[in-house]
């Protein structure tokens, strides 16, 4: 009897054990299914914003490939203030490059504006390399009480929006008679503190002991900067360049305030001036403006991400 009970108990135990392992397996499988289903649901939710990003680009691309007549048929209602809705075809009925041809071969002004933009961006970035990168190295390699205070000032300056500093910039540009020249845009941007902050993030990631070791080995401070700092901390300055390109390719407030002469304007300011009557033209110009930004975005994406992460680092 006793044995029987014992046996029974063990048997029940075994059975129970089996049953529990069974539910365990089931539960695991259930969790797996739930996870997969969760991911399957998440995916469309995550892709929805993706659609919101891709559709505008497709809209611009397809619009740029329509001839003016077809485009007019679709969006005519916008500039005639008609009562019917806008319509669209992602694949134009009569695809043509005629607007591109007009823009690229018959509109010399467009080239002027394009090169204005390029010149501004490249000059600004070159200037930032010369002034901001060494400054960032100074802050990262020679920490001290004075440098901390100064760095805090840089951070505050970085966070002030253009509108707050607009009047001060105007006053100094006026005194230097830079107004209505490209220098009015270039110089204030060269001395912006944002690239200092980003490059600082890259330089700060170099272990301090490494610099000390180089010093012990007798390397001069300039050698350390050129041979150690620049190669090891390049991610910071490259991300500053990528973010800088996207920012200055998109210049608006500064040229609007400081450049009166339209032939000096960058593309970003000229583009919105094209009227709906020349919509086909506007679409092409938008695409051409978009191309360099997309190019930099694609080749610089890792640095862009890195730069965002650096900009989020506490000092």
């Amino acid at each position, binding site marked *: 009897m006793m044995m029987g009970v014992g046996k029974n108990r063990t048997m029940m135990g075994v059975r129970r054990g089996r049953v529990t392992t069974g539910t365990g397996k089931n539960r695991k499988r259930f969790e797996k299914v739930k996870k997969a289903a969760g991911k399957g649901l998440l995916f469309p939710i995550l892709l929805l914003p993706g659609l919101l990003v891709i559709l505008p680009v497709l809209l611009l691309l397809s619009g740029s490939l329509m001839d003016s007549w077809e485009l007019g048929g679709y969006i005519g209602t916008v500039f005639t203030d008609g009562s019917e809705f806008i319509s669209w075809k992602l694949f134009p009925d009569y695809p043509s490059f005629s607007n591109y041809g007009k823009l690229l071969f018959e509109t010399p002004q467009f080239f002027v504006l394009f090169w204005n933009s390029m010149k501004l961006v490249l000059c600004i970035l070159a200037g930032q390399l010369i002034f901001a990168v060494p400054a960032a190295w100074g802050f990262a390699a020679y920490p001290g009480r004075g440098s901390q205070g100064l760095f805090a000032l840089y951070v505050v300056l970085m966070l*002030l929006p253009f509108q707050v500093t607009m009047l001060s910039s105007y006053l100094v540009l006026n005194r230097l008679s830079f107004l209505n020249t490209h220098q009015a845009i270039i110089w204030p941007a060269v001395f912006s503190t944002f690239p200092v902050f980003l490059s600082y993030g890259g330089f700060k990631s170099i272990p301090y002991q490494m610099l000390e070791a180089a010093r012990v080995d007798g390397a001069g401070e300039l050698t350390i900067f050129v041979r150690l700092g620049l190669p090891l901390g390049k991610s910071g300055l490259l991300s500053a360049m990528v973010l800088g390109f996207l920012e200055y390719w998109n210049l608006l407030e500064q040229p609007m305030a400081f450049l009166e002469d339209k032939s000096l304007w960058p593309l970003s300011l000229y583009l919105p001036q094209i009227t709906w009557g020349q919509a086909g033209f506007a679409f092409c110009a938008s695409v051409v*403006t978009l191309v360099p930004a997309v190019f930099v975005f694609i080749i610089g994406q890792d640095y862009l991400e890195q730069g965002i992460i650096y900009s989020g680092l506490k000092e």
Partner: protein
Amino acid sequence: MRKKRRRFFCLFVFPGFFGITVFALAPFLDVVKRSFTAAVTGAFVGGKNYQVIFQNQAFLLAVKNTIRFTLTGIPLLVSAGLMVALMLSGFKNKGWIKSIYLFPLAMPTATVVMVWKLVFYKQGFLNLFLTRAGLVTGLWGEVHKDYLGTAAAFWVLVGSYIWKNLGYTVILWLTGIGGISGEMLEAAKVDGAGGWQRLWRVVLPNLKGSLFTIVILSFLNSFKIYREAYLTAGAYPDQSMYLLQHLFNNWFVNLELDKMAAAAVCTGGVLMLAILLLQRLWEDR
């Protein structure tokens, strides 16, 4: 040794600092001085300029709208970013999804605005879509709302701000989430904490540091929304989206430099206080 280092610090920092002094610091002091003088004569007028701007309807409206925009846009952006980041953190291969979210950052505003005009025009794509949806569901008729010329413009602006900056915040949140130690999460799991519990009790409290950073950067970027606002609606848009930036620009165009100086000092002062406060909060943790 210390002396030598200080010398090199100066060598590296000074050229840039000189430029910053010339182009930012010195002229700002000039602006502070000007905020206490009359625009034309340059005579000292005390706090009169400040009195004038605080009785100026346009200034009060712009301040109100800017505050309203910041208080609506930033919480929405920050929480949307957190939600996306939490969803994304489970994926192994998230590179290209991140790229999609980041892409609007690269799109020049001028091109975006062109699309926005087609979308939000009263016969535009959004109303077309809504009308079609209404036809299918039978719930409503044709929609002919004008989004850019009415108070709805404010929400177009908020949406545009989120659209542009979401990728930025998602990356920062993901970095924060990636920084939480796996051991801690594992320990919570072993102790029997469910998914939601782990989220509320472990993940979110550990993201406080990221929150400060993200709020600051979103704030910084919130001023750039002026580009979209100006390009869609010009210098005098609907009242609901007349921002401080519009006001500064219009004062600049009209050469009302005395008011501008006073407003720049006020805005700069408020911003500096906010930044210092947040810095203090950072250090306390």
